[in-house]
């Protein structure tokens, strides 16, 4: 691979904590290898800041292999940056050109308050799962796993929905800060599988209710969430969520 050194200008959101106002600050980084990941470029910047006695930029990250869902940067206006189907940690610097100015912001949504700089509080997602994102079964002695054959097509669809990493890019991408893609992924996974049937109605009602309580906006079907989702969770799931919600709501009114 070619190792090209990039010189870049970064405009990064700095905010001390949830109570104070934030602002963009500019930084220059030099000789960035195109083989670096975007977060490794931030490591270089932070080392630079620390060595000059300044405070480093706080950002969330952990696995750095695109699966934990912790990293969360809006890069040049796009959650997780320019590459489709890619988390921030898997974005590599070959996506940029020498001399580029890159703007980096946290997820912007009322339900995701800023903790510091690029770090936000996504505990609302945990509370939505608490509202029903599970099958109510205790640890114990369930039946043999193969006693319940499941149509491969359904299992594959359920798996595709279950691939959601809960990063919140869908919310950050949405002009209404809607969490519909996240909620629909979990509702779909469990509505498609036989294990999820007993709680199918109560689950969808309860999870949607919690989503509303958390202050997430409504879905207007613009599809920005699907376009920015690093796991390419399909909009079909939102359609399914709507159907599930409708039939559950109708049934519960009887």
């Amino acid at each position, binding site marked *: 691979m070619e190792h090209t050194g990039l010189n870049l200008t970064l405009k990064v959101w700095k905010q001390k904590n949830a109570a104070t106002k934030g602002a963009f600050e500019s930084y220059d980084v030099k000789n960035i290898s195109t*083989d670096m990941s975007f977060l490794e470029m931030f490591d270089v910047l932070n080392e630079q800041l620390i060595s000059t006695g300044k405070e480093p930029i706080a950002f969330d990250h952990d*696995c750095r292999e695109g*699966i*934990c*869902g912790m990293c969360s940067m809006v890069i040049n206006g796009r959650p997780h940056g320019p590459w489709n189907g890619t988390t921030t940690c898997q974005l590599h610097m070959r996506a940029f050109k020498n001399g580029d100015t890159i703007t980096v912001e946290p997820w912007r949504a009322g339900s995701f308050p800023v903790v510091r700089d690029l770090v936000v509080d996504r505990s609302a997602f945990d509370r939505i799962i*608490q509202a029903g994102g599970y099958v109510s079964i205790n*640890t114990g002695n*369930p039946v043999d796993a*193969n006693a319940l054959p499941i149509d491969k097509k359904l299992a594959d669809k359920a798996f595709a929905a279950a691939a959601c990493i*809960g990063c919140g890019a869908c919310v950050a991408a949405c002009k209404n800060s809607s969490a519909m893609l996240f909620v629909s992924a979990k509702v779909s996974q469990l509505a498609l599988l036989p294990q999820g049937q007993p709680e199918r109605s109560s689950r969808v009602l309860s999870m949607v209710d919690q989503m509303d309580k958390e202050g997430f906006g409504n879905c207007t079907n613009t599809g920005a969430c699907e376009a920015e989702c690093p796991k390419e969770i399909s909009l079909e799931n939102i359609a399914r969520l709507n159907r599930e919600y409708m039939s559950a709501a109708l049934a519960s009114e009887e």
Partner: protein
Amino acid sequence: MELNSKIPAGPVETKWTKYKSSVKLVNPANKRNLDIIIVGTGLAGASAAASLGELGYKVKAFCFQDSPRRAHSIAAQGGINAAKNYQNDGDSTYRLFYDTIKGGDYRAREANVYRLAEVSSNIIDQCVAQGVPFAREYGGLLSNRSFGGTQVQRTFYAAGQTGQQLLLGAYSALERQVALGNVEMHTRHEMLDVVVIDGKTRGIIARNLITGEIERHAGHAVLLCTGGYGNVFYLSTNAMGSNVTAAWKAHKKGAFFANPCFTQIHPTCIPVSGDHQSKLTLMSESLRNDGRIWVPKKQNDDRKPIDIPEEERDYYLERRYPAFGNLVPRDVASRAAKERCDAGYGVGTSKMAVYLDYAAAIERYGKIEVGKKGLSNISKEEIIALGKDVVKEKYGNLFDMYAKITGENPYETPMRIYPAVHYTMGGLWVDYELKTTVDGLYALGEANFSDHGANRLGASALMQGLADGYFVIPYTIGNYLADEIRTGHISTDHPAFLQAENEVKETLNKFVNCKGNKSVDYFHKALGKIMWNDCGMARNKEGLEKAIKEIKALRTEFWNNVMVPGTVDEFNVELEKAGRVADFIELGELMCKDALDRNESCGGHFREESQTEEGEAERNDEIYSYVAAWKYINAGESELNKEPLIYENIKIAARSYK
């Protein structure tokens, strides 16, 4: 100190059943008055928190991430083993037990491993019942694949995201208990000490990572489910936050640390590309099912891989180990790659890589598709295209990841891979009940040492984490807590809590007041280099002695010259890292000491002084058939205790995969 592993009497097949039916119980009314603290929410922690919450205990769970769903178990790719024998290929509890003991190079405890194999089937049942979407065949039944070190297909999987799906299952069970009020979840909290009163664990000191506040939490028992310590090498496949701090603090409070030098170096990772590298990415072992590993037969061959003809390639694993071929266990595959690269046959710009080639698999799958579809007059290009589709369905996400990181297309050119630190078999010493040498303090999952000996087989980490959390601890903890029902509420006003809190605060202040001129990462990288060079894939006396000296010097320099910006009472990432690196430095020294003590080669531990003429690892059962359990005395000073390993069911033999 005499180490009592508390292995129940009787034949290995009945030990667990007998234990379960005779162990003390805690009645439901008493469970409500007993607090259990669980640190870490990966597979072991989340499954334990959910299961103990279901039983009615009052559980408090802690994780440093922003959600329990982010624990690093989520990154496990390939699968989870279980002795279901769904494939009718001769699997059984005994086989899984045997493979695990042999895979661990006869350095694991028989009774624990047998229990692991025994409960493996329940795990699959439990996960399926939770709605975990495992891969399935067209008939609707579960699919299996092969993994290294075995000759049966017993690995269950969900594409290359098995860890994610299992963790989300355990996470959802945990969140259900949170909703029911049985579990109190503390995210963005890091445990910084254990509190021991009169020899019993009574709580922890934790730091709220958002506010910097130091908190006291009391409990009748504490479970450490905090994963492994691979990040002592700086570069590893672990998450950036994975650390040894909780386990190390426990060690300093009296918990013995067992076999610290047993490190798993995984053979198939994406090679290091430069000094900026912050972590290494694993390419699942499942890729060795279909991929063939080779290097050129000529040294320093600079041709492109596709220009090197078949007869000029050395498929060195197939050559050296015909019985297991590309599916030899991880330690064997890693060493063989290192051997070829050291001998000058490595590939890529760094020459520290070997090829993992899918060309043959793509063609083979293409031909199968041609047969299935009854096609005729098909060109080679069309066969390849069909084969690529099949490979894409099986390994697509892994191939995509490789392409993103390296900028190369693995469907067209072989992948370059090299071994990287992946898992640590060592950990806190525990007895049969998963209890450490401190009363009331337990260690589960990768944080303990018990099941994988000197080398873990692929797809066994997920199995152990969930076995410990779902099926072992719910039984064994009762045996301790049954005697705690009269303890009553534990006050955090006890002087021991105050003292622990003050010590934690003092250390944190030391970091921010040091105002040196080197960053935490500088020290972490320096430690990693020492560890990788002298306590990595090959170790020798001279190198280890040098490493111990260097680490001691590094420790002194760290405490005198580390630069931690910011304050203690705010969200401060550098401060978090400083605490973790301080503990890694102490651990690194102990690992080198342990490696120095064990002058034999076994599993992932390869002492250059102990090898056969063909360069295979040579074990020394007469002297080293023991668990090395280290007791902490002072920083840089430890005392070795030995738990002899007794094999009653499996005949110890030289481990051969030829």
